[in-house]
C-alpha cells in the first residue's frame, strides 16, 4: 500500500496525462452514429451559438453560389412535371404518390454548423423535434443528397454528412440501368465519393449520373448523388473502383431540406415483424 502511494506520487504527472488521454481518445472512439453525440446534447446552446455566428459571417461569402444553386433547382422544378408538387406557405412542400396520398413532405432548414476537414463530418441544422424532425430522416441540399438525421434536440438536429466515413446509401445509375452496390466516402476529397460493388460486366462510363435508388427507404428515389468521375479496375477484382463527383458542394452548404417519408413507420414495422419471424 505504501509502495502504491509512493508509486502514484512519483508518477502523478504521467498518470494525469494518461487519464486525460484515455478520456479524450475515448471520446473519439465511442463517437459513432449509434451513440449520441456528447457535445451535441450537453452544450448545444453555447456552441451552436458560436457556430451560428460563424455561418452568419460565412454565408455572405457563399451568397453567389447559393443563388446559382437555387436558380438551377428552380429550373429543374419547372422542367419536371409540377403536378405532384404543391407548395404551401408553411415552408413545406409535399410530393404525392400514385394514389394521391402524400408520400414525402419537405421541411426547409438552415445549416448552423458543418465541417468538411474531418473524417467524420457532421452538419447541425436549425430545425428539431419541435418542428417535426425525427431521427433517420433524409436531408437533401438544393443540388443533391446531404445526409441523414442521427440526433434531434428540441430546436436543432445533428445530421450525418455524406462525407462521413460511416455514411452509406444505395445508388442507381439510370443510364446503365444499374441498381446495386453502395456509395461511401474514403475520407480523402470532400468533393468526391466512392461507388463500390459495381460488377466489371456493367457498362459504366464516366459522366454518367448517379442518383439515389428507388430501393432506398430513407431517400426519395432519383435524387442526384453526383456524376461518375473515373472508373478504375483493380487487378484481379471483379468489381470496379468508381469515383463519383458529388453534386452537393459541402463547403458551400447553407440551407437544406429535411425529408419526411410518411410511410417509414409502416416499413419499419414490417421489417421488425420480418426479423421477429426469423
Amino acid at each position, binding site marked *: 500500500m505504501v509502495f502504491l502511494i509512493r508509486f502514484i506520487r512519483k508518477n502523478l*504527472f504521467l498518470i*494525469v*496525462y494518461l487519464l*486525460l*488521454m484515455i*478520456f*479524450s*481518445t*475515448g*471520446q*473519439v472512439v465511442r*463517437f459513432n452514429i449509434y451513440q449520441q*453525440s*456528447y*457535445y*451535441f446534447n450537453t*452544450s448545444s446552446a453555447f*456552441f451552436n451559438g*458560436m*457556430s451560428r455566428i*460563424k455561418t452568419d*459571417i*460565412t454565408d455572405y461569402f457563399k451568397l453567389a453560389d447559393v443563388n446559382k444553386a437555387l436558380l438551377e433547382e428552380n429550373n429543374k422544378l419547372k422542367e419536371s412535371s409540377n403536378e405532384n408538387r404543391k407548395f404551401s406557405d408553411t415552408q413545406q412542400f409535399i410530393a404525392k404518390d400514385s394514389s394521391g396520398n402524400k408520400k414525402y413532405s419537405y421541411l426547409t432548414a438552415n445549416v448552423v*454548423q458543418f*465541417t*468538411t*476537414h*474531418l*473524417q*467524420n463530418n*457532421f452538419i*447541425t441544422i436549425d430545425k428539431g423535434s419541435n418542428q417535426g424532425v425525427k431521427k433517420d430522416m433524409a436531408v437533401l441540399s438544393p443540388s443533391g443528397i446531404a445526409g441523414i438525421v442521427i440526433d434531434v434536440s428540441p430546436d436543432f438536429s*445533428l445530421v450525418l454528412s455524406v462525407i462521413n*466515413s460511416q455514411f452509406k446509401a444505395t445508388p442507381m445509375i439510370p443510364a446503365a440501368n444499374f441498381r446495386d452496390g453502395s456509395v461511401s466516402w*474514403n*475520407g*480523402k*476529397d470532400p468533393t468526391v465519393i466512392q461507388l463500390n460493388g459495381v460488377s466489371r460486366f456493367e457498362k459504366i462510363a464516366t459522366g454518367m449520373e448517379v442518383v439515389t435508388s428507388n430501393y432506398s427507404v430513407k431517400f426519395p428515389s432519383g435524387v442526384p448523388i453526383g456524376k461518375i468521375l473515373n472508373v478504375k479496375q483493380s487487378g484481379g477484382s471483379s468489381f470496379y473502383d468508381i469515383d463519383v463527383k458529388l453534386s452537393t458542394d459541402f*463547403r458551400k452548404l447553407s440551407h437544406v431540406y429535411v425529408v419526411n417519408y410518411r410511410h417509414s413507420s409502416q416499413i419499419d414495422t414490417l421489417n421488425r415483424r420480418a426479423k421477429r419471424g426469423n
Partner: protein
Amino acid sequence: MAIDLLRYLFGAVLLILFQFFLIQEINFGTWLKPMPYVLFVFLLPFTYNRYLILLTAFFSGLFLDALNNSGGLHAAACSTLAFTRIIVDTKILDTDAIQLQGFRYLTPVYKNFRFYALYLFFLTFLHHWIYFTLDFSSIYSFFPVLLVSIVSSVGSFLLILLYKIIAGIR
C-alpha cells in the same frame, strides 16, 4: 499570477477562434491541414506549474473539439504536446539560464535559430501526428497519416514563424 494566467487563456481562446473561423475554412488541399493554434502551448511560461500547463492545453483542445463537434481529437493532441513540451523542457533545456536572459519561454533568440526551429517543428509534428492518427486511423494506413502530418506540420510551422516575424522575434 492569476491575471497573467487569464491573459494567456484569452490568447489561447483568440488563437482557437482564429483556427475555427479562418484557417479551417481555407481549403489548402487534401494533404495540407495546418493548425497554427498550437502556438499557445509554446507561449506558456516555464514558471507555471506543469499540471497547470497540461490542463490548460487539454481544456483549450476540448474547447476547439466542442466547436467542431470532433470528439476529443484536439484535446488528445494538445495534452500530448503539452506533456512532451514539459518533458523536453526539463530534460534538454536549461530553463534557469533562459529565464536569467529575461525570457519566459523558448525563443529564437536563445541559442540559435536552428535549435528553436527544431524544437518547434518536432513538437508541432507530434501534435499533428497524434491528431491525424486518431482522425484517420479507421481509413488510412500508417504512411498516408505520416505524409499528411508532415505536410501539415510544415504548414503550421511556417504560419507560426510568420506570426513570429510579424510580432517581432521575441
